[in-house]
């Protein structure tokens, strides 16, 4: 500590070490948050339901997504990525998972939302298994923190069924 340079170096080193500890504590403090998110999805309409020439079923859905994800936000949350996936079982795959809609929630004020939309991404089956198919709609989210560990969770909504006939 006898010279300007040594003192500046010691201070910088110690300050950055403490900063790392603070960031680690901020990340750990996220574990005290026990979120209670809620979500509902309604299938308003089936815009079209058809079989492509290559034999794959395609469906276009009109959806009403409403969710309250405000409890996911803590002081260490940068943003929340949320996506709605359709999930169903076919003889070929035990789990088919297709993202229909996604969004980025930049702040807690925007975390209570509803949106009426057609599926943002194409919903095409691998084959022709969709007539009369039961499916789940699952709202997945990834909580992106300012520092530290990322959290992910989901809400599964079941009890949906596609019609028996193409339209």
């Amino acid at each position, binding site marked *: *500590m*006898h010279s*300007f340079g040594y*003192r*500046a170096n*010691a*201070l910088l080193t*110690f*300050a950055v070490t*403490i*900063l790392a*500890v*603070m960031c680690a*504590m*901020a990340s750990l*403090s996220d574990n005290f948050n026990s979120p209670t998110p809620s979500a509902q999805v309604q299938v308003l309409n089936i815009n079209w339901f058809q079989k492509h020439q290559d034999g794959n079923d395609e469906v276009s859905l009109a959806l009403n997504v409403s969710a309250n994800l405000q409890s996911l936000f*803590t*002081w*260490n949350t940068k943003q929340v990525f949320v996506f709605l996936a359709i999930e169903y079982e076919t003889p070929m795959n035990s789990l088919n998972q297709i993202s229909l809609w996604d969004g980025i929630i930049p702040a807690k004020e925007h975390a209570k939302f509803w949106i009426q939309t057609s599926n943002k991404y194409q919903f095409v089956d691998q084959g022709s298994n969709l007539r009369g198919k039961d499916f789940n709609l699952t709202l997945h989210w990834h909580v992106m923190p*300012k520092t530290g560990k990322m959290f992910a969770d989901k809400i599964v909504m079941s009890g949906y069924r596609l019609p028996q006939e193409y339209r």
Partner: protein
Amino acid sequence: MDWQGQKLSEQLMQIMLLAFAVGAFATGYVIGSFQMMMLIYAGGVVLTTLITVPNWPFYNRHQLNWLDLSEAEKHPKPQVQQHISSSSKKKSSKK
């Protein structure tokens, strides 16, 4: 900066940084603002730098009192015995 001053500046630096870190974290957590934590801590680091890095006069209050020259003359250094003749012979033989 004298010895006491160096000790003081190091302790001041550590205590101030820790205090600002604790204060910044507590404030940020309570008001729920990560940015406020960073701002308080950054301010604390700047303030600590200004206080502990430059050689302020109050770090130089304990000047070393060197002994008077007469003390050294009263207690002369023990002299090392030298073998000049033998070492010079070795060197010359190598050359």
